């Protein structure tokens, strides 16, 4: 795990270098476009975390193996953190580009908020039920329902007719220069590696906590 953490830190540093010193300045938006290099990969990572959480939830319901419950929970927790970061960085970028912190008329923004709030409610549901198989199953079903919102949120921008939110990736490919796309790819790999590192660290902590609780019970302490 230390190698993974070092790799994530190095990739994040490289992503910042590419975003600020390698990618050219956008002719239309100017410097504020540089938020894109972190905002979009963070949003994609949030989707990936929610998807991963749903996959683990499906495995729990299918194989009835308890370890998937914790894995699903940690992935959704990561997704919520990255989701909050997506909303925060997106809002700052919106203010810089459109002059508004938030626009309720934008389907992409509202659907992402719905997805974020849906998975935020997951924690309220989970912690309102006593620990055990019942909690694991109900949490898994809830996590699976949420996964439907991911493609809807992702495609909303492409299906909506009147949007301000930019569509960078179209059927014709990425609408940016090669260097900009390279900077984006480096940032995407960096943030995905970071998310995976945080997932592994949090999962190890939770497993250790659970094992210590079992040990305390066995020792009667």
């Amino acid at each position, binding site marked *: 795990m230390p190698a993974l953490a070092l790799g994530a830190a190095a990739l994040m540093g490289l992503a910042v270098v590419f975003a600020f010193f390698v990618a050219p300045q956008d002719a239309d938006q100017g410097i504020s476009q540089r*938020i894109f290099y972190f905002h979009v990969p963070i949003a994609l990572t949030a989707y990936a975390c929610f998807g991963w959480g749903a996959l683990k939830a499906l495995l729990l319901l299918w194989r009835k193996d308890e370890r998937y419950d914790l894995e699903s929970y940690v992935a959704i927790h990561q997704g919520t953190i990255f989701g909050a970061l997506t909303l925060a*960085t997106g809002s700052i970028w919106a203010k*810089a580009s459109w002059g508004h912190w938030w626009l309720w008329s934008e389907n992409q923004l509202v659907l992402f908020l719905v997805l974020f709030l849906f998975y935020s409610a997951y924690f309220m549901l989970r912690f309102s039920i006593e620990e055990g198989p019942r909690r694991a199953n109900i949490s898994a079903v809830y996590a699976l329902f949420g996964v439907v919102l991911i493609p809807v949120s992702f495609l909303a921008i492409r299906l909506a007719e009147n949007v301000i939110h930019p569509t960078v990736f179209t059927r014709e490919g990425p609408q940016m220069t090669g260097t900009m796309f390279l900077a984006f790819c480096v940032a995407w790999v960096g943030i995905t590696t970071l998310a995976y590192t945080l997932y592994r660290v949090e999962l190890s902590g939770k497993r*250790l906590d659970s094992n210590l609780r079992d040990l305390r019970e066995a*020792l009667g*302490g």
Partner: protein
Amino acid sequence: MSSGEKYVAAAYGVVLLTLLVYVAIIAAKLARLERETAELAELARRREAKQPADG
């Protein structure tokens, strides 16, 4: 600093701050787990020391 630069600094600052808070929370949790492990090890040692006298 232009307003565009301020927004970029704010966006990257939010990401950095969130990461720092996350690492701080994980570090605090790790310290608690370390303390609990030491307590359990002490409990196990005391049990072991007590056992020959009982048996």
